[in-house]
């Protein structure tokens, strides 16, 4: 069913995508945000994410509920990782199923845009040179 969650374990995208199945689904859009090897010109070798878990869960669920009320979709699932991540790992995953593709694209993009803007989760980048810093854009 619909939902937002915070996960300390690696994200299993295939399992999450199976959760989008429903009668009447004609379109599925999935987004994966991955740990990149560079940011702002610096070589990154790992990331860690910290969340204010109770509020992140509540705000993430609010975003999913907003998307449901705005777009004609079947299922919405979003999961954000916390803890230490290696290069290439999935930091955030969002998937939407719908009867038609416009709603699936719009809802998926709404969810990830709003999660990045509003959910209290912070990223610390660990650089190849050995230092690290919290990102507070």
């Amino acid at each position: 069913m619909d939902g937002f969650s915070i996960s300390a374990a690696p994200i299993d995208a295939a399992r999450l995508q199976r959760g989008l199945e429903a009668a009447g689904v004609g379109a599925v859009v999935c987004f994966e945000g991955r740990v990149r090897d560079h940011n702002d010109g610096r070589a990154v070798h790992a990331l860690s994410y910290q969340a204010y878990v109770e509020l992140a869960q509540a705000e993430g669920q609010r975003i999913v509920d907003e998307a449901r009320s705005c777009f004609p979709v079947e299922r919405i699932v979003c999961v954000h990782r916390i803890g230490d991540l290696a290069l290439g790992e999935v930091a955030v995953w969002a998937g939407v199923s719908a009867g038609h593709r416009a709603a699936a694209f719009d809802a998926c993009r709404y969810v990830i845009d709003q999660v990045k803007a509003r959910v209290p989760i912070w990223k610390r980048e660990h650089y190849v040179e050995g230092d690290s810093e919290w990102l507070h854009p």
Partner: protein
Amino acid sequence: MRYRLLYFAALCDAAGRAEETVTSGAPDVLALYIELAARHGFTFAPERLRVAVNGAFTDWNHHLADNDEVVFLPPVSGG
């Protein structure tokens, strides 16, 4: 009054702790932030932060009650 504080990300680094309980006469969230910013050397201007009391977003003039849990939220960078 006694307030419970949680600190995240750069504020956690600056405070040198993830949580603390303080005794303060600060009547609202803004007054409490100013007091704690001076104590811990927080450099964020209030307008760059959001604030939550007892697990819900609120605003800077939120009037505090004894044992409230207060969190100053630095700009987020999830995703």
